[in-house]
């Protein structure tokens, strides 16, 4: 093996209990059982790219499945475990699919959508408060029915009557509490395509906004990611995955839902949403430079949305003006004709 961990191999020659072979085996063992198990996903990926020895060692399934399970407790459920085991590189593929954000730009929007390829999707959802898990659930959604395809797309994690205790204190000071929650709440919402063997994380991780409803006092935390929708210039050029988490009066999670909205602010139906998710699933992944970048992408989307609205208003106004001018002109023309 050309690759040598030479520093680790110092002072091995005088060992009497075994030869060099056992020592090098021992080293691999130390690396595998002690160092690699302490690493997070991206660091493990870094280590695997250094040389073939570390590449082999860091490909061990248990390293990646442990990382998946500790990052997303929802992946420990039997259904998700089974689906992950069918992925090309099992847990490793699942992690690389779900850890980073989907790149918005790229040529994957040429991907042909075939809804029959995705008869169902799974949502594996984990909500954390100060790194403590407060909600972890998996929901299956059938996507084959006409009902699903024609009605607005919406995945709910909780039944309307259910709520989840968080153990959080009800905030006294409005603004400050919401700002704190922005720092403390983290959401992961992984959409899994069991047949396509791909997964995509549609959450921004950190909330893009936290607000208290003026009347009900409920706290709404919104998480979002922007996906590439359709043709350039159309309302679906970009679409936003809106994840809303509602905390009720006693700081219980009342609602956690996922919807997709286009640039006109219209909620997309199941068919269109599934198409957008399919493109996202096959698209590239990119790690964000910081947690702020997710929010920046959302802000940019909102800005584009506003510009679009203004443009629309302007052209409507221009059309109105034109109508008024034509009407006035015709009145004048008629009256001249009539009077003469």
């Amino acid at each position, binding site marked *: 093996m050309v690759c040598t961990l030479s520093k680790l191999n110092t002072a091995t020659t005088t060992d009497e209990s075994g030869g060099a072979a056992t020592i090098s085996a021992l080293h691999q063992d130390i690396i595998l059982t002690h160092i690699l198990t302490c690493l997070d996903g991206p*660091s493990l990926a870094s280590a695997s790219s250094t040389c073939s020895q*570390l590449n082999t060692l860091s490909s061990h399934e248990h390293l990646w499945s442990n990382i998946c399970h500790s990052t997303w407790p929802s992946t420990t459920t039997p259904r998700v475990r089974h689906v992950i085991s069918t992925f090309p590189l099992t847990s490793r593929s699942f992690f690389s699919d779900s850890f980073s954000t989907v790149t918005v730009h790229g040529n994957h929007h040429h991907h042909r959508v075939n809804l029959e390829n995705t008869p169902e999707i799974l949502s594996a959802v984990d909500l954390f408060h100060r790194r403590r898990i407060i909600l972890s659930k998996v929901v299956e959604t059938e996507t084959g029915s006409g009902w699903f395809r024609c009605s607005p797309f919406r995945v709910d994690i909780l039944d309307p009557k259910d709520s989840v205790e968080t153990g959080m204190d009800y905030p006294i000071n409005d603004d400050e509490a919401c700002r704190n929650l922005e720092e403390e709440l983290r959401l992961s919402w992984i959409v899994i395509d069991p047949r396509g063997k791909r997964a995509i994380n549609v959450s921004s991780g950190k909330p893009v906004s936290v607000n208290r409803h003026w009347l009900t006092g409920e706290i709404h935390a919104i998480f979002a990611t922007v996906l590439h929708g359709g043709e350039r210039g159309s309302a679906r050029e970009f679409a936003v995955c809106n994840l809303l988490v509602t905390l009720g009066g006693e700081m219980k999670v009342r609602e956690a839902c996922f919807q997709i909205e286009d640039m006109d602010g219209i909620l997309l139906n199941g068919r269109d949403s599934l198409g957008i998710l399919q493109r996202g699933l096959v698209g590239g992944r990119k790690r964000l430079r910081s947690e702020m970048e997710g929010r920046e992408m959302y802000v940019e989307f909102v800005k584009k949305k506003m510009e679009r609205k203004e443009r629309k208003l302007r052209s409507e106004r221009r059309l109105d003006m034109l109508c008024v001018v034509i009407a006035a002109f015709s009145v004048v023309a008629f009256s001249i004709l009539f009077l003469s």
Partner: protein
Amino acid sequence: MAAEKSSIKIITLIAADGSVFEVEPNIVKEMKTVQSYIDELDQNTVSIPLPNVFGNDLAMIIEYCKKHASEEETKEAKEEFDFEFVKRMKSDDKLRLLQAASYLNMESFLQFMAKAIAAEIENQSVEFVRDYFQIESDFTPEEEAELRKENEWAFK
């Protein structure tokens, strides 16, 4: 057996470079390699050669063991000691100490060093990790490019 062990007053450890360390039996408890050696002997004084550990490293390991074997120290004080202990080490030291810990079969110290090493390569580039372990890449440029692409998701 227990009575025999308690009769041993002082243990002499001889490092690879010949430096000698005299320690009490409770210090070497963590070093399973040394402990099993002592258990087999039936003497009042023992001297044990450790040809795989250098004097500087052995001194550091003994310092660590002394602190952690002490019952007077609080948990906080031990944690602070650990923090300072890692802080003054270079990366070479950590790797050598990990090696020594493995040879001496010191489970918790081994874990402690591995964590310290993992913390250093956490969130670092491929080049950094190569440099850290003095690894030479054995990938062809094509393989390298493919790995980059495969792991693109992980790099900022």
